[in-house]
């Protein structure tokens, strides 16, 4: 990709999307590469290839995209689009992330409906479903090491995890009560721990 002409001579050359169309197309291409999740592709495209973000900026933006509700990659495209071109850029980013994949997935669903009575097709989807369940469980398990640096400590985190799993997967408690109850407990506990940490730092 050629460097943007406005940034070439400056000491900190900085790539950026050239237009809202550029944003839309870039996010479309990014999304269409993302089988089973877009995060890995987003990092490679936005940081390594396009260099719209440094690795540090990507991690920071990613953290924000993740704590806010909504699909993470869509949140990320919304935030980035907004930063460059305001709310129109945000729309362009989100539209890019969703339009083509949505059409594709509906075509897939319609195609599947045509063969849905075929036992082989049913079997294939059943097999993919069993794999997909594993993909999602593994995505969760791969995040567990990130809890080591959590201010609440690994023990409290694992206890919260276990309680959440039991409430949601086994007892089928509505999500809102889980988030308000266990989530509220987690936030209050983390707030306390952060306070202790700050006090300790001051004392030393």
């Amino acid at each position, binding site marked *: 990709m050629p460097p943007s002409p406005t940034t070439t001579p400056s000491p900190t050359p900085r790539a950026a999307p050239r237009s809202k169309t550029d944003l839309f197309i870039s996010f479309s291409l990014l*999304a269409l590469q993302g*089988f*089973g999740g877009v995060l890995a592709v987003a990092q490679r495209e936005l940081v390594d290839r396009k260099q719209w973000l440094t690795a540090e900026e990507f991690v*920071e933006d990613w953290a*924000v995209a*993740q*704590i806010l*509700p*909504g*699909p993470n990659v*869509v*949140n990320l495209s919304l935030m980035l689009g*907004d930063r460059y071109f305001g709310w129109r850029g945000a729309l362009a980013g*989100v539209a890019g992330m*969703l339009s083509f994949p949505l059409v*594709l*997935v*509906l075509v*897939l*669903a*319609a195609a599947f409906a045509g063969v849905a009575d075929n*036992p082989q097709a049913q*079997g294939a*989807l*059943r*097999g*993919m*479903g*069993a*794999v997909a*369940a*594993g*993909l*999602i*469980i*593994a995505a*969760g*398990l791969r*995040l*567990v090491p990130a809890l080591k640096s959590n*201010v609440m400590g690994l023990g409290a*985190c694992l206890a*919260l*995890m276990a309680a959440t*799993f039991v409430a*949601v*997967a086994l007892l*089928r408690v509505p*999500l*809102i009560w*889980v*988030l308000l109850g266990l*989530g509220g*407990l*987690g*936030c*209050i*506990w983390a*707030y306390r721990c*952060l306070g202790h940490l700050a006090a300790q730092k001051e004392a030393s």
Partner: protein
Amino acid sequence: MSITLTAAQWFELFTHFASLSLLAVGGAITTAPDMQRFLVVEKGWLDAEQFSNCIALAQAAPGPNILFVPLLGWTIGLNAAGGLGAGWYGLGLAMLGVFLSMLGIMLPSSILTFTASRWGHRNRELRAVRAFKQGMAPLVIALLVATGWILAANHKADTHHLALWAVTALSTLLVWKTKIHLLWLLGAGALAGWMGWI
């Protein structure tokens, strides 16, 4: 399957997704257990197998995982029309389902993200912001695991029940511990199912 949906129930579909939109901390997939509870167990607008199929199809296709939500709307719309055999009427109701579910799941969270991301970015060192991030982290992870669990537990008891659990366990292990490309796994699962092994 065939169901009928009143206008009020279509609205209920929209509001359920809209309320989950703001709860979807860590991605829409973490609200899948609640969608399953509401749509399948409580309302019976689609069956457990269709629910799993939507997630499997969305995982098999490129793009954000959130696309299983419009697929749910699509399936519910088709159920309400009595299937694709209903022609344009079926397609119309399916697209209505896509539109309502997508709008519901996207709009509230996007508006919140739009307004809050700048604020959060400016105040990322604030104690309350950090407490929220860290306090929610274990829940986000547990919700992912619970989603996978519920999908795995959806298998009908009369099919090759144990084999499917084994496939789920194996794919969990492979994704967790290796860097194998997800497409190979999905392809292998599809093949095993097609051949009737699982």
